[in-house]
């Protein structure tokens, strides 16, 4: 296995293929599916159309029936024709909702394509509703629309909208930014805590009352690569970003922890003491799962912006060859450190023209194609092996203890294809 330090020239300055055709990606509303689980006293109210409601339902799967903490205020003819004042209508629906759900402490009004095209002012609505329902309920608005946001950018927009509302602090502190599954977040806090780093806050917090503040002595580390707007908003509050590769795999996790540790002047000795054991475990776990991945080629369709860090993990730690790494956006400030660590070779594509990209994938016939749910079965039927990208944002995959699981997500489809036989024995 290659070492982090042996970088070659890296890919940061590799040419980027920019495409502007038909995109086959989710809109930002989809982020609500994991955000509403993370923020346990928040409700996400989309102001949109039946399509938006149907998207949420389809992306969530009927599995989470019961009453989830999201919903769609569906615009009707009367709202569009201006016969009803949309602000009043919204205030009424919010009133009803909050009455029924006194457990709700944060209400997010989420803009959609229709609400933005008719220029429904959700910022104004949020202000008025905050005044009416505060301080018990804080109302914040952000856009999850498909004309403004792609998939994980919904989380980015949500967190960025929260930043201006955070109280100011002068304290020297570390902030971890990104909605992670609890198990993963706890592991990260534990590792950092054992190095003696603190105090640490996490954005978003699980509850409105958990203190998260920010200021000029705050340094922050992103746990997800799609948080460009949040990065900018925190910078505006005076906080400083710790650039690092993202904590995927043993190497990514080590590099990420190292960058944070350096910021806090942690000695090599302490660092080694805390990380050696989980590092070794992660290496072993990855090696096992990676056996099937060695020398296989991988092709990424754009989806969550996790593509570049994951390609780094697969090429450096699992021995794969990346053919094409497509991402909806490439923020070099954020994924630059990951690109530095990648060997030259793959095509980097930003944006999408899905038919052209499918042509390229068919021509390359990669061993593994990472793509959205709309493309996976059709490509399988054409004989390509696929991994659904959405699972990568729903499953715990960050940090050491999940490194093996992450490799496993990619190796399973290949193992499965090798396993299945339906022809006669003779």
């Amino acid at each position, binding site marked *: 296995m290659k070492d982090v330090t042996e970088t070659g020239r890296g890919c940061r300055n590799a040419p980027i293929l920019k495409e502007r055709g038909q995109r086959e990606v989710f*809109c930002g509303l989809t982020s609500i599916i994991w955000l509403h689980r993370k923020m346990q006293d928040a409700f996400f109210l989309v102001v949109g159309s039946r399509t938006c409601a149907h998207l949420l339902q*389809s992306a969530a799967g009927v599995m*989470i029936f019961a009453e989830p903490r999201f919903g*769609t*205020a569906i615009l009707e003819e009367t709202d569009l024709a201006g016969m009803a004042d949309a602000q009043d209508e919204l205030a009424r629906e919010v009133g009803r909702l909050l009455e029924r759900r006194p457990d709700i402490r944060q209400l997010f009004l989420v803009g959609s394509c229709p609400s933005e095209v008719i220029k429904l002012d959700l910022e104004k609505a949020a202000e008025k509703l905050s005044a009416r329902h505060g301080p018990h309920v804080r109302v914040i608005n952000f856009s999850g629309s498909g004309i403004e946001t792609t998939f994980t950018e919904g989380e980015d927009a949500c967190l960025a909208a929260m930043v201006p509302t955070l109280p100011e602090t002068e304290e020297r502190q570390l902030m971890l930014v990104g909605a992670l599954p609890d198990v993963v977040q706890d592991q990260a806090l534990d590792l950092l805590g054992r190095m003696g780093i603190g105090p640490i806050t996490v954005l978003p917090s699980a509850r409105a009352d958990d203190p998260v503040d920010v200021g000029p002595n705050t340094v922050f580390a992103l746990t997800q690569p799609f948080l460009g707007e949040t990065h900018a908003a925190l910078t505006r509050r005076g906080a400083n970003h710790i650039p690092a590769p993202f904590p995927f795999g043993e190497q990514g996790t080590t590099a990420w922890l190292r960058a944070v540790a350096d910021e806090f002047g942690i000695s090599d000795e302490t660092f080694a003491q805390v990380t050696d054991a989980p590092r070794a475990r992660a290496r072993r776990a990855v090696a096992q799962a990676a056996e099937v991945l060695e020398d296989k080629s991988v092709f990424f369709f754009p989806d969550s912006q996790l593509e570049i860090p994951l390609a780094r993990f697969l090429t450096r730690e699992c021995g794969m060859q990346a053919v094409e790494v497509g991402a909806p956006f490439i923020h070099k400030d954020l994924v630059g450190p990951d690109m530095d660590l990648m060997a030259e070779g793959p095509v980097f594509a930003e944006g999408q023209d899905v038919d052209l990209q499918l042509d390229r994938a068919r021509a390359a016939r990669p061993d593994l194609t990472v793509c959205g749910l*709309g493309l996976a079965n059709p490509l399988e039927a054409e004989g390509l092996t696929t991994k659904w990208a959405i699972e990568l944002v729903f499953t715990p995959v960050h940090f050491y203890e999940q490194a093996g699981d992450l490799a496993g997500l990619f190796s399973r489809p290949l193992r499965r294809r090798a396993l299945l036989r339906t022809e006669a024995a003779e």
Partner: protein
Amino acid sequence: MKLTVWTYEGPPHVGAMRVATAMKDLHYVLHAPQGDTYADLLFTMIERRNHRPPVTYTTFQARDLGADTANLFKTAARDAYERFTPQAIIVGASCTAELIQDDPGGMAETMGLPVPVIPLELPSYQRKENFGADETFYQIVKSLATPLQKTAHVTANLIGPTALGFRHRDDITELTSLLADMGIGVNVVAPYGATPADIARMGAAHFNVLMYPETAETAARWMERELDLPYTKTVPIGVGAIRDFVAEVAAFTGRSATLDDSRLRLPWYSASVDSTYLTGKRVFLFGDGTHVAAAARLARDEMGFEVVGMGCYNREQARNIRKLAKDYGVEALITDDYLEVEQAIEALAPEMILGTQMERHIGKRLGIPCAVISAPVHVQDFPARYSPQMGIEGANVIFDTWVHPLVMGLEEHLLHMFRDDFEFHDDAGASHHGHKAKLREMNATPTPEPEAADQPRMETGVAVVWLPTAEKELKKIPFFVRGKARRNTENFAAERGVSEISVETLYEAKAHYAR
């Protein structure tokens, strides 16, 4: 504005996609933002389709809005034609594009594409998925089908089956063989599997079999008028309906009403003594109008259930369902709000629900068994095995499907006998159902226990209280009839102005309701 959490139907353009995806050599150019491409996964994941839906989305973005979304549409339409060379193109707008008023239909017509271009007007803020499918199919038929000489042999078109339909795939096979037994061929099945060229041939059939009024009734009426094609009114789900259907077809064609019922098992299975326990099971029906109407007849007349409530989510069928409900002496529930459906079910406390996937979840929550009879579909509604709803095999399949969730006859007795046995006790549920529903799988908020929802709710306004001894006695009654016993006892008490329920009252009520 209306707050919605779960919906029974998607927007109308999803209905159009169900038609387009079912067909071959047809392409849909949809003016829509990128996020609307989620709809592809319904087809590729839920239905496991092995090809992408034939849809090109323009995926305009905010920066295009002021500039040139119209050109974006034209480029997308031209590229789609060149890449896919379909026989015909349908064009339309999703909810967002409807607001920016680019008129995709008008634009596409001026482009001079060498194939028929069919514009769709689907009002996204008024109508829903079923309307979208019905209207799309109608527009396609109206544009492409013409009066033709009838086939020499008697043939029918099977109309209505779409992609993402509830068992449409297998219903086609079943009806094809049912008609074959009568010596009738199939001219065209549409939209499922049809090309635009096939649509053009539809006029050659002698009549239409309207399989699903939800998706093809408007087209059926138009073809009756313009192409001289009468259409069947009975949907052949359930034995009685199959016989009526055969008679209807015989009347159209002058063929004899032949039905090969040698494989039909429902009547005997239902008559056999093992099924005695099904008698008078109180069932609640909900789904699309067509499946609910068929299920009502089957439930009452062929299974011996008692229909205690029914309803549908598609307003287009409201009139039919209201009328039918009246015949059954129950209230019709016409709503697309699942919370209302849940309330109705809670109030009626049926012993079984025949509903959609939504009601299956409601049933899980309330501890009431449910069998699925209608769309909206779930991946489970596309079983690998052959399992139609229509025709002879459909009736057999339905018997099995409906009986399965109920505790089987013999087991019911055993449960009663051993109700205090440590592993065979009350709360164990039917042994073949795996573990009981886990409530609120992804939600931390505690749910009220179904039992708590079972508090006295009296129409008379008298509050009825259970004495502890009576409550204890009630617990001894097996769980699958406990809800009914509680309800009956409370009604019994309320009717008599009794405000405290004792063990005595419980058994008085039991005797009163004995049958």
